[in-house]
Each structure stands twice: as C-alpha cells, then as structure tokens.
C-alpha cells in the first residue's frame, strides 16, 4: 500500500501532465493500475486542496486543477532555501551557505595549498 505522500505526488503528476482540469473519476481511471477507490482519490485531493496545491471549479462533478506548476513550487522552495533572511536560515540547515567570489578564491587556494596530488 503506497503512502499518502506517495499518492499525493502521483496525483499531482497527473494533474500537471493533464491538458485541463480533471474530475476525481478521471484520476481514478488514470491510476487504474493502482486500484484506488474513488473515496481514496477524494481524500488525496482534499489533502492537496488543504495544502493549497490544487483548486476545484464549480462544475458537476467538480474538476480539479493544480494551483501552480511544479517549476513554480520548486522555485518558491529554492527562493526560501537560498534566501539570506535570518529566520529562513533557522528553518533550514544548509550544508554550505552562499560564498562570494573573493571567498571562493580563498577556498580554492586552501584546497590547492595542501593538496598532495594537484590536478
């Protein structure tokens, strides 16, 4: 049994790949290989809607569409990750923060200075 997070990702991928808004039944049919019940699809859509990833229209039956492209979500995340605001740094433990050009040169010299096998 796939996890909910896994299902959410799959549903989003279908919505992103679709030409237009999809109804829950369309999604169930598209994911037929997973044998999902319609209620499960609705649960997943509800969770995604709550998180702000999908919106539905007023048609009958309701049709769902993504609120932003995958690229937009990735860009939003990267903006926060690369942002320099103090409270953002507190949220994410980055491996290495951004380094300016001067510092980059110094780092390369440091590495070269003690390198037993220079390239």
């Amino acid at each position, binding site marked *: 049994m796939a996890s909910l*997070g896994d299902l*959410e*990702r799959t549903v*989003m991928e279908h919505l992103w790949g679709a030409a237009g808004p999809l109804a829950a039944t369309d999604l169930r049919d598209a994911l037929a290989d997973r044998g999902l019940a319609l209620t499960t699809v609705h649960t997943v859509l509800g969770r*995604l809607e709550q*998180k702000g*990833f999908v919106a539905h229209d007023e048609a009958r039956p309701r049709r769902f569409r993504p609120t932003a492209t*995958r690229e937009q*979500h*990735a860009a*939003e*995340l*990267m903006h*926060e*990750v*690369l942002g*320099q605001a*103090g*409270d*953002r*740094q*507190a*949220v*994410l*433990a*980055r*491996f*290495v*923060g*951004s*380094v*300016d*050009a*001067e*510092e*980059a040169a*110094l*780092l*390369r010299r*440091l*590495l070269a*200075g*003690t*390198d037993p096998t220079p390239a």
Partner: protein
Amino acid sequence: MLPATAVALAVLAALLAWPVPALLGRARWPARDPLAALICWQAIGLAGGLSIVGALLVHGLAPWGHSLPEAAWHVVTGVPASGEVRGDHWVALTLAGVLVVELLGVLALSWWRTARTRRRHRELLEVVVRPAATVPDARLLDTPAPVAFCIPGARPLLVLSAGMVAELDDDQLAAVVAHERAHLREHHHLYLLPFLAWEAALPVLPAAGRAHAAVRTLVEMRADDVALAALPGRDPRRTLARAIVAAGTAGGTAVPSGALAAAGSAVAARVRRLLEPPAPLPDAVRAAVLTAAGLLLAVPTALLLLPALA
C-alpha cells in the same frame, strides 16, 4: 540598600552580556572542540537570562524577605512587606516581568514560526520532489544550484539538489549526506533556538548576534566532525573539504561581494580545520571548560536559592 545577592547577580549578568561572549567568540579553542564550546554557549545563554531576571527579582522583592524563596513565599501567602516598598522595587519587578514574558514569548514564537515554515517546506518537498535513487532516505530536488539541507522535526527530511549530485563524486556526496544526518541526529536546530530568541528579544545587545553566529558555525563544525567518523575512504577530511568547497563555489548563485563576509569566513574556517586539523583539546582542559560551564549555571542558581548574603 541593595542586597549583595542582587549586586552579585547584576555583575554576573553584565559579564555574560558582553565580555564573556566576546572572549568566547574570539577564542581559538572552540574549533578544536565544537561540542564543548556549544555547551559553554548554552550555559552562557541560560545563565545570562537567569542572572538578569534574578537580579531584578531579588532587588524588587527585597522588602518582602531576606532571600528570594522567602520573599516569594511571603508575597504568595500575603505576608505584608517588612521593609519600605519604594518605586525602584516596583520598577525592578516590572522589568523582570517584561523580560521573562518577552524571552519566553519570543522563544515560543520562534518555535511556532519555524515549525510552521518547516511544515510548509515539507509539504512542498513531498509533492515537488521524488525520492533520490542514489541516496536512500534523501530527496532529490530538481534544480541546478548545488544545495543540500535538512528539515528537522518528527519526520526529518534530507534534501539534495540535482546540481549538488552533478557537482560531487560519490564519496563527496556521502560526506554531505553524513554531515546533514549528523545535524538531524544531534538535533542541532535545538541548540540554535535559544540564541534565535535572545537575538530577537534583545537586538540591541551585540553579544546576542555574536553568540548566534558562533553557535551556527560551531554546529556546522560539530556536524563535520560527526560526519568524518562515519565516512569510509583514505582521507575523509579532504573528501569533506572538497565537498564544502565544491558546494560553496559552484553554481551561479551570485552573491554580492562582501555581503556574506561573516558567513563566508565561517566556511573558510571549516575548510581550514578539515585540511589542517588542530590538536583536540587535552582532557584536562576539556574537563575545566565543562566545569566552568557547569559553574556558570550553578552560581546564579545558588545565589537565587541560598539565603541572601546581606
């Protein structure tokens, strides 16, 4: 007349607000033993809060008794003040109350805010990224910038960017992953939280910003050390140093020169101590440092709880 206890606590608070953090921030030994230094910083942060609030309380409650426990008990049970209650007593009590509410409030607010942002990031990641094929339990973010980070919490997430994977070889990638796992395993985000609160509560206090920056750097050094122990290979130090340099210098994340001088020099310090490891602190020195940290907490506690000296 001020009770000697209040004066002693005020002196301690003044020392912890400026000279002690300045000295520790400038000292060279923390790079030799980041964990001991982190413990010292936590003791400074806690003892600083304890002594400043304690000094105000001891002075403000002086008319009600000879020691803090006695005076507090008299106030709670409604025993009238034995001495004259002057304006400065009320001022001290008000300041103590404001400071306690502000520090705890800011702490709670930072906690809540970071928890909310982390949840949002986790939601975004779960939908946007796929599990990395090469590194189990890590997520792969499809972006060219070389980035690695972790989101701490009950369900921690370790994230690598496609740029990072492309930039590093397998050994270096393993070093990055080990470093981030060390952050998660040792809950380094909790070490930072009190200093986040201090800095937000008292932005005018230069020591608060200095302490926050120092703790941030030490946490990275500590994660480097933990990662080294977990890395195979002949020269894990060089592997990790190469990974840091590659991640820091690759990619076009243009940062205006000088804008990040402080953060940048911390990266250089990390690389330096990996390539030319300083001798670890001798056991005796380490024990002395830890004892000092313990005393730092014990002294204000004793001053508050033992009967007043005067």
